[in-house]
């Protein structure tokens, strides 16, 4: 069966576009998460028509289908949980159109996020959603996860910048939804598809808004002796409704490790820092920077430093964006969580996370999008120690449970995938999930598109993850 499907795919796509040998497939059994699952065959379509034909062919074999961008996802979204055909969009990486007058770009899904900004920056433009992984992740992956980033605090996440899509439905039909203008005629299907984690359709073309670079930018680094002072500062910046373009927090312990690695000029002896950016017209930026500084000082900031120039600012951001990589120096592996809370609850939540870590024998780092209450606690663990991994998962789940108790959510940007699908009932009632399932079935009736994601399967999640572990899931 599989051999025949592979042969047919090879005939369809020509040489060099199909992988089916075990040693090749291994590369596609991971993404950025702690999960693992192997596809039966990996294909590299070059056009929408090819995607459509692959889907029709897979249907004849009742094979599961999963789309994949760069595989940087942190919730196992791009893993072939039930095997089947994986479509990697790496070769659909063209920017098809840039409309400078109307600030739109039309791109294929495999375009790397930062490459779009690079292509338009000569005209003073950029693509606003900026996940920390932006030099690797694809816009197709961003659309599927509704990715955020440091600067989405002021400018909105991926969904706020996507006006239209071309998609291939599960029966192979090619449909366009939305358009360039951004106003839906009919239900907002673009809004539904963005963030649907590849479970409703395969995205083959994306129309995005471009943004104009601000006239002035100030990057501030505020250094605090304690995490509490830093979180209280964020609470007050929010309550005073000073909306910076970005407001990131890094705790002192992880920051010291990052500094070892990136030499960005971060202090090595702080309790926590806030990396805050204000943008806009000169007059507004000056006032905002002053207001931010004042709040920081009121909360005992030891130092509030304004980056002198673009170089210094870039260095600080490089430090922030490479932070997760730097964590590799502290432990064999780390588990990056993603939860959201109301911003007014930041201080108590961080205290609670620290306490939970202590109870379970972990020191938990925190590098996160503080301005929008999007936490990324990082649990360091040794993947060879099954008991420790199990404890890490349990701790993670307790943290997420706490977020939900405070009125928060299970994931702010990394998605549910196969990481949190069993936790969905913490947030959603059976009626909520039933409706979402009905919507999925309206697009994906046979359930063969990215199966085993988003929705609870009924197994306990620790159980599922332990199984992956037993099969030898490697560290990140």
């Amino acid at each position, binding site marked *: 069966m599989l051999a025949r499907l592979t042969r047919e795919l090879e005939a369809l796509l020509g040489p060099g576009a199909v992988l089916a040998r075990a040693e090749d497939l291994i590369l596609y059994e991971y993404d950025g998460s702690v999960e693992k699952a192997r596809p039966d065959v990996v294909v590299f379509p070059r056009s929408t028509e090819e995607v459509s034909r692959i889907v029709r062919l897979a249907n004849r074999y009742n094979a599961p289908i999963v789309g994949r961008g760069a595989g940087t996802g942190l919730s196992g979204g791009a893993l072939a949980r039930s095997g089947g055909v994986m479509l990697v969009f790496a070769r659909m990486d063209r920017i098809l159109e840039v*409309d400078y*007058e*109307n600030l*739109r770009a039309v791109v294929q899904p495999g375009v790397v996020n930062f490459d779009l900004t690079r292509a338009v920056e000569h005209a003073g433009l950029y693509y606003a959603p900026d996940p920390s992984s932006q030099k690797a992740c694809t816009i197709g992956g961003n659309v599927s996860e*509704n990715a*955020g980033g440091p600067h989405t605090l002021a400018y*909105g*996440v991926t*969904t*706020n910048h996507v006006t239209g899509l071309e998609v291939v439905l599960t029966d192979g039909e090619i*449909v366009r*939804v939305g358009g360039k*203008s*951004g*106003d*839906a*005629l*009919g*239900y907002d*299907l673009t*809004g*539904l598809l963005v*963030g*649907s984690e590849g479970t409703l359709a395969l995205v083959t073309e994306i129309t995005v808004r471009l943004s*104009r670079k*601000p006239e002035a930018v100030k990057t501030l680094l505020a250094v605090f002796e304690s995490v509490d002072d830093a979180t209280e500062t964020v609470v007050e910046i*929010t*309550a005073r*409704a000073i909306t910076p373009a970005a407001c990131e927090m890094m705790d002192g312990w992880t920051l010291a490790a990052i500094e070892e690695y990136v030499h960005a000029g971060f202090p090595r002896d702080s309790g926590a820092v806030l990396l805050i950016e204000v943008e*806009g*017209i000169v*007059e*507004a930026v000056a*006032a905002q920077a002053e207001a931010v500084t004042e709040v920081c000082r009121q909360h005992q900031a030891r130092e509030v430093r304004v980056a002198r120039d673009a170089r210094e600012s870039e260095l600080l951001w490089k430090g922030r964006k490479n932070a997760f990589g730097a964590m590799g120096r502290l432990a064999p592996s780390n588990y990056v969580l993603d939860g*959201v809370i*109301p*911003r*007014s*609850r930041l201080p108590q939540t961080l205290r609670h996370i620290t306490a939970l870590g202590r109870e379970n024998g972990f020191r938990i780092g925190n590098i996160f*999008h503080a301005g*929008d*209450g999007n936490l990324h606690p990082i649990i360091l663990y040794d993947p060879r120690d099954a008991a420790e991994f199990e404890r890490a998962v349990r701790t993670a789940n307790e943290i997420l449970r706490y977020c939900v108790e405070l*009125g*928060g*959510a299970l994931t*702010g940007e990394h*998605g*549910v995938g196969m990481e949190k699908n069993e936790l969905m009932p913490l*947030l*959603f*009632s059976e*009626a*909520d999930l*039933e*409706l*979402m399932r*009905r*919507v999925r079935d*309206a*697009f994906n009736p046979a359930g063969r598109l990215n199966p085993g994601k988003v929705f609870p399967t009924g197994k306990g999640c620790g159980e599922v993850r332990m199984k992956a572990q037993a099969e030898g899931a490697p560290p990140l």
Partner: protein
Amino acid sequence: MNAPGSSVLARLEAIAGAEHVLAQPGAREACAVDGVAPAAVVRPASPEQVAEVVRFAAAEKLAVVPVGGRSKLGIGGPPQRYDLALDLTRLDQIAHYDPGDLTLSVDAGMPLARLAEKLAAHGQFVPLGAPWFQSATVGGTIASGVDSPLRQFYGTARDFVIGAEFVTGAGALAKSGGRVVKNVTGYDLHKLLIGSLGTLAVLTRVNFRTFPLPALSRGFVAAFATAQGALELRRRIAASPLTPVTLEILSPECARLFAANRPGSLAAPLAAPGAWFHGEQWQVCAGFEGSEAVVARYARDLTRLAGEAGAAGVQIFDEDAQPPVWTRLREGLPLLLEASPAAAIFKLSLLPGQFAAVFEALRAAAERHALACALLARGCGAVYFALLPERNDAAALARLAAAAATIFEIAAAGGGHAALLFCPAALKRSVSVWGPPRAEFALLPRVKSAFDPAGILAPGRFAGGV
């Protein structure tokens, strides 16, 4: 259903209480959609009661239209069936408000104006500066999908609605999203409800992110002899570092309507409106906000840009003139509707780069069909084009129908699309208000049946005949 069985009324009364089931003609006609009045109006007191009513309706196959302030019931196709109006105005409380987090959860029946007052006490607002501000409810504004001049800066509802609670057509209480500003847990079903005209679910609660009220709010009007001049100014603003909160372009006819003080109009009377709106010229109106230094910069730069674009005159609103002028812009749609007994208002969604060609084509179409017209464009890409016949008679309807076909074509030729938002009910017999079918319409019934398997929610009112 013209004579509701007494058993139907009895069941509804058992759910909502006898005084909240209205079957007298006045109450029913007040909820009429395109001339079709429901057999009864039910006013539930809670989401649970809403769910009970919907479950009952689904079991009895009664068609239900949710209603709020009843200001925009005219939007959409004519109802295929209409038995019950589900009046949400008793659900009118703030369920949760965390000013420190800038998040809000509010019942669907809350009037926009009252919500604004409550948030203003905390120095905040929700950027729903939508028309019929005094009578419209939160739920009706979201479900009708009307935009506001504030979208220039704040975006549309899809950008600041962060979650919703609703009752599906099967009568299930469900929700999506949440109360936090960033969230990707589960499908964004609430996005589907925005602009869905109650055809998918009955909104009971909507969650928003809130925004700080600006320190100072000012405005600016520049007048131009030609549309080209006005569009040139729009282009220059878009290419500048300025980000005004509103940016509207008015045709001379539109400006003339805005300049008139009509008795009984929704818009507050304006002292010397002619000082702001000039019926002989195209006008660009921009609103801007911020500190003294920021508004001074805007005033200076906008004046300079207008001069470079060849403006015939420029005025800056002070704090006294700003509110009434702003009211006119916000209430643009009702003002256009008041201007004719058979007004037909199209909304075209396109990119601003197409404005010049589209404006010209639209006005030519109106002229060809001997119809008065007025045009109001939002700088970010929505164009409202009103055809304003003097009488509501067969001849006028025929001319409107012919013009409508042309206008849908103009929108498509401009790379966008159009919908006929408001028009005489009789026109809907010959014109599909959603324009010619689009490929994506084929997906709409699938979504509809996921939410409303029995097809009882506002059947027929939505695009694709849903």
